[in-house]
């Protein structure tokens, strides 16, 4: 069996009568891009939230790098190397883009019980943050306040913050939603370059992006993973076409 970084076993989560995650089994091989697709309300975001720790599953197990992380907090998992981006932009709005990304760098560099030295004079941290901003094409926006840049740029900032954490596992929840065509194409390029360096679980509605990026593909419907396979096999899978892809993609 190949080297799996993430191993999900029998994961269940329900909200009242809705089964958002039902007996989900999934493994993600180290260094690959694994995409998850599925219609609205399929449970994709709920799955990510359980992997990063915001939501506690009802039952089941999650192993990261061979170790169960089911009882670890969000912050602990982040420091272990699991980074996520949010489908609904979640950044520190009153801070500049640079300050936001510097926070991401800070989170991964030791404790923050530093009471005296100003962060804005920390050149090493600033350089690291600037390079993450440059990676997503935001270097000339660095000193703008997050609240005052475009929606598309906030989406890029989401990704820059996750990248700045230098994670081992990157969970991306529809990173291209809300981006323009050009930024979307750039994001595909960025993710292509990252392949191999880190392991990526990608949720995305844009099929062109998914088909050009994913090494493997899982299809979620109503809380179930109905298929996991290579991109070619999924595209050929009749059941998937019926359940999700529709005629346009067949």
């Amino acid at each position: 069996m190949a080297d799996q970084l993430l191993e999900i076993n029998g994961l269940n989560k329900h909200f009242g009568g809705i089964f958002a995650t039902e007996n989900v089994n999934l493994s993600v091989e180290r260094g690959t891009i694994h995409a998850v697709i599925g219609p609205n309300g399929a449970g994709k975001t709920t799955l990510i939230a359980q992997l990063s720790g915001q939501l506690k599953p009802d039952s089941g197990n999650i192993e990261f790098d061979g170790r169960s992380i089911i009882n670890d907090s969000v912050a602990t998992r982040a420091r272990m190397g699991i980074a996520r981006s949010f489908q609904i932009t979640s950044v520190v709005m009153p801070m500049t883009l640079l300050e936001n990304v510097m926070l991401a760098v800070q989170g991964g560099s030791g404790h923050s019980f530093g009471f005296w030295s100003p962060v804005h004079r920390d050149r090493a941290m600033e350089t690291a943050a600037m390079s993450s901003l440059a990676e997503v094409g935001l270097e000339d926006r660095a000193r703008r306040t997050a609240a005052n840049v475009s929606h598309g740029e906030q989406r890029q900032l989401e990704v820059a913050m996750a990248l700045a954490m230098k994670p081992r596992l990157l969970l991306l929840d529809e990173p291209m939603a809300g981006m323009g065509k050009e930024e979307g194409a750039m994001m595909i390029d960025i993710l292509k370059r990252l392949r191999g360096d880190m392991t990526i679980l990608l949720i995305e509605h844009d099929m062109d992006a998914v088909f050009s990026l994913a090494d493997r593909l899982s299809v979620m419907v109503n809380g179930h993973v109905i298929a996991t396979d290579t991109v070619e096999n999924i595209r050929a899978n009749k059941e998937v076409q019926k359940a999700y892809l529709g005629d346009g993609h067949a």
Partner: protein
Amino acid sequence: MFRLPANLSGRSYALLLAILALAPFILEWANQPFYLDLLSRALILGIAAISLNLILGFGGMISLGHAAYIGIGAYCVGIPSYYDYYSGWLHLALALSVSAIFALVTGAISLRTKGVYFIMITMAFSQMVFFTFLSMEEYGADDGLVIYSRSEFPEWLSMDSGVSLYYWVFAMLLLSLMFTHRLVHARFGRVIVGSRFNEQRMQALGFNTYRYRLTCYVISAMMCSVAGMLFGNFAGFISPDIMGWTRSGELIFMVIIGGVATFFGPLVGTIVFVLLEEFLSAITVYWHLIFGVMLVALVLFGKGGIHGWLSSWDRKDADYG
């Protein structure tokens, strides 16, 4: 260290500090010693307001129980003095450690809650302290406790005269301003401010926000206890009245008047509050009413408090207000 910006608000604050530094001389020259008392009181409350602003303004933790730490600080002077222990270092050490322990325990519980619940639970804990002192007959209960002599320090640090006590207060005020400024711009402050605006994101970045907020809460309480220690010495008489929840409410107003999450706002707000209280109460018995209307108007129309109003001419500062 303290780099004041070369704009209107920055210059105003520099001028304010210069006036405060020279106030004893100015007031003696003008033959108005009473105002030195008033100013001492304002600056003591200013330290308390600055400490509250650290959690309320920068940290977004709205406590309606901060006056408890003024009380704890004051009784850490009063009770030892009652037993003839007058050492100032002892008083200071007691104030800092008792407030730290109380803040650690109550903060650990309070910070499990958010929003209105946090406001209510901090108020409940402070009322607990209030009623504890109210019930202690030995220390005067609601009649209060007279402190016959000020905390004893080496000669050059003595706080025995009105002027020397004023400079104690002024020095502590400068320290709190400087410490807050350093703290907010340091790694710790970034985490505190970030958690105020987006705790979910901060956790996802790897920060155990609970632990950082609790630390911030304890630091703020310790800072406030110094104000209490000074207040005990200044007033010479303390009673549970100094830590009632209305006192905590006044502290919140002082912060809002001056400007939430700004460095000088709480100090300016406190001075304005104390002066207004003094002059309005001399004019009319209905001063509470006038005061209330002014406060409501300020909250509704004066976004950012006095600091916001001053800096609307030089808007480009990086305050997180």
